[in-house]
């Protein structure tokens, strides 16, 4: 599919992402201006505050955006997931350039002009409104312009906390190795940044002191433009509200990879078929879905027992599937008041993969078979596998593995391509990855039973289950209903054949319903 076809197929969705992206930026910038300009003015009056406040704003900007979102999630009122968290983070990022340029602009007003203003008997307020602010306006607009461009960039990360925007395409594109998605997401954000830069640059030049004749007209123009933007924003806000304010809906969440999206889509479509309105809050990063569930932002999401056991409950690795499931069920009800469904029928565990040709030549069946060869091999692993307890450190110890060099740490979905093209010789993929067969890769059996069981389950809020009968029904139907092959097939349809999850899920449900 070329980019043009992609645009034709995904036009409305792309427009929605652009709109969400722009609104996030706009709301954040308006708030940052409302805080930043008065703060900047205060700093020009109180010299002792200047160092600490500018220092703090500086530190804010050095925090990596993903880390800042991470800090904000557990906080009450301003934290959580979704739009509000994203706006808080964006405001924090936008403050520095606005405050700094307000201070610089006002302090940069010619001392003679300022002295004349004082000597003419102007009050501090009159000097500020009639002299300092008009003369500093061009510099202040530059600050807003810088803040806006930064915010448009940072907003792409906001997709990780479920705030939407063009970042959704960027994350999805990275995951699925889909250049059309990447181009639409990154290119769209870049175009938006260029557009904002151009428009604000226009106002900045109009406010420049050398062209002061235009100031009054520019002020009017800026006011009119702001009004139009506020009206549009208000319209979007209201239109957004009406759709999300329907009652008795179930909010379905998912993690940020294809399989999780597909599993979430399955439960979503089953609920919709039962007449329950569903809101989809998909593609949440890291352990966000768990936090979102606890914060009542979502009602249900697909999880793996092994992840719940080690990453959330923080138990040491355990390889007995029944014990893990039992413990997870017990702890989730007791600690979180959350219900863990029956397993869906397949496991998604780490799969140690090598090229098929290699496996046949060396007659490799198990990981133990591969031990003598690994000293000549290079390995590539996703960031996740490199760091978690049940990942590389324990794995290499369990099999006493030695590689030719330190394993490359890279994006999980890129490791498949690296393996296929001979850049590396062994990777740890997912057992349900659709591309395993398509790429002629072979999974080596975990003969020392090192990897813990990752059985797929749904985790739901207990009150939602009690309230919505259709949800209970659906979960009962799905127990043991999805085989590993079916899951691989669905993943393959989405990742390799670039079909949408709703479409793939509809087909699978139709087949299941026919049985």
């Amino acid at each position: 599919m070329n980019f043009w076809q992609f645009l034709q197929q995904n036009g409305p969705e792309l427009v929605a992402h652009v709109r969400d992206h722009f609104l996030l930026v706009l709301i954040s910038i308006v708030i940052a201006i409302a805080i930043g300009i008065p703060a900047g003015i205060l700093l020009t009056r109180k010299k002792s505050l200047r160092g600490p406040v500018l220092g703090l704003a500086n530190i804010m900007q050095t925090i990596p955006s993903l880390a800042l979102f991470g800090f904000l999630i557990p906080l009450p009122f301003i934290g959580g997931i979704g739009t509000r968290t994203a706006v808080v983070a964006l405001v924090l990022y936008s403050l520095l350039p606005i405050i700094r340029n307000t201070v610089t602009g006002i302090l940069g007003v010619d001392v003679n002009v300022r002295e004349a203003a004082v000597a003419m008997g102007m009050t501090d307020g009159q000097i500020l409104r009639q002299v300092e602010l008009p003369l500093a306006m061009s510099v202040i607009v530059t600050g807003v312009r810088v803040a806006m461009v930064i915010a448009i960039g940072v907003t792409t990360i906001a997709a990780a906390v479920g705030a939407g925007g063009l970042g959704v395409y960027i994350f999805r594109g990275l995951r699925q190795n889909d250049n059309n998605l990447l181009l639409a997401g990154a290119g769209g954000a870049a175009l938006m940044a260029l557009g904002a830069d151009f428009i604000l640059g226009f106002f900045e030049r109009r406010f420049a002191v050398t062209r002061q004749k235009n100031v009054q007209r520019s002020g009017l123009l800026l006011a009119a433009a702001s009004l139009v933007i506020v009206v549009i924003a208000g319209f979007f806000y209201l239109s957004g509200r009406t759709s999300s304010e329907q009652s008795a809906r179930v909010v379905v969440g998912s993690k940020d990879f294809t399989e999780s999206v597909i599993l979430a889509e399955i439960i979503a479509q089953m609920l919709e078929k039962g007449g329950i309105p569903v809101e989809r809050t998909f593609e949440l990063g890291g352990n966000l879905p768990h936090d979102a569930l606890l914060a009542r932002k979502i009602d249900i999401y697909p999880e793996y027992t092994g992840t719940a056991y080690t990453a959330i409950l923080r138990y040491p690795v355990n390889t007995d599937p029944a014990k893990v499931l039992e413990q997870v069920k017990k702890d989730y009800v007791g600690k979180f008041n959350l219900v863990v469904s029956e397993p869906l029928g397949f496991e998604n565990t780490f799969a140690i993969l090598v090229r098929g040709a290699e496996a046949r030549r060396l007659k490799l069946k198990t990981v133990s078979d591969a031990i003598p060869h690994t000293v000549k091999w290079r390995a590539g692993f996703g960031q996740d596998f490199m760091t978690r307890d049940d990942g590389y450190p324990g794995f290499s110890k369990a099999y006493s593995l030695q590689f030719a060099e330190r394993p490359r740490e890279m994006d999980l979905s890129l490791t498949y391509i690296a393996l296929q093209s001979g850049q590396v010789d062994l990777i740890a993929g997912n057992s349900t990855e659709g591309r395993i067969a398509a790429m002629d890769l072979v999974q080596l059996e975990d003969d020392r039973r090192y990897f813990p069981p990752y059985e797929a389950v749904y985790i739901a809020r207990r009150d939602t289950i009690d309230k919505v009968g259709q949800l209970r029904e659906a979960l009962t139907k799905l127990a043991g209903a999805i085989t590993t092959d079916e899951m691989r097939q669905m993943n393959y349809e989405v990742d390799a054949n670039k079909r949408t999850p709703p479409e793939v899920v509809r087909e699978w449900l139709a087949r299941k319903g026919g049985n």
Partner: protein
Amino acid sequence: MDEPVHNALVEFRDVGFRHSAASAAVISHLTFNVQRGETLVLLGKSGCGKTTTLKLINRLLVPTSGQVLVNGSSTSDWDPIRLRRQTGYVIQEGGLFPHFSVGRNVALVPELERWPASRTQSRVSELLAMIGLPGDFAARYPAELSGGQRQRVGVARALAADPPLLLLDEPFGALDPLTRVGLQREFSVLARSLNKTVVLVTHDVREALLLGTRIGLMDQGQLVLLETPAAFLASTDAHALAYIETLKLPAAVSDQEDLSA
């Protein structure tokens, strides 16, 4: 004020000023009067404290010792805003607001004083005529004027609300010699015809002699001489002689020309 025969509009009483307790005094033990209607010129090198002295009058600075009285009241008792609106102030290059038209610059104090628009309007026209600028200059911006024109506008702005007292800090310093002499003559006529009390700061002894009814010579924060121009020229004070010396150089040049002729 009630003090009966008080002919001094500005009075310095043993005034000292330092920027902070730790720093050296900028001026010290300054005592003199400015009479109503006179033009007092403060003459001195850069850093001698003459600009500081000027700023003490409209309370841009407050004395750290002694008192400055304007119209009989200490400046620290004056509401600074009231005091400044009754005191015209002109600085080098005019200190005009670059984002205001000439008309708005001149109208500044009348507008702050909430004069009716029609009165402000006619005052601006009157002042532009007085400083010899065509009426259509009101719509121009400072960047579109020459240095001399900006300086004239600066004077017009200071005169707008008809204040009894005018303070000028090196008003003609940045101008070319021909423009400067022209403006100095015009200003001297203007100040006398309007009967203003003027305090003018300069380092140019010719300007002091041309404009001053009295000349106050300052050195290292102190007033070393306060005389009429005639008495100043006849003075044997070392500081005054140094200034008078600078006037003689052109005479020597003309002597040489006589010899060669």
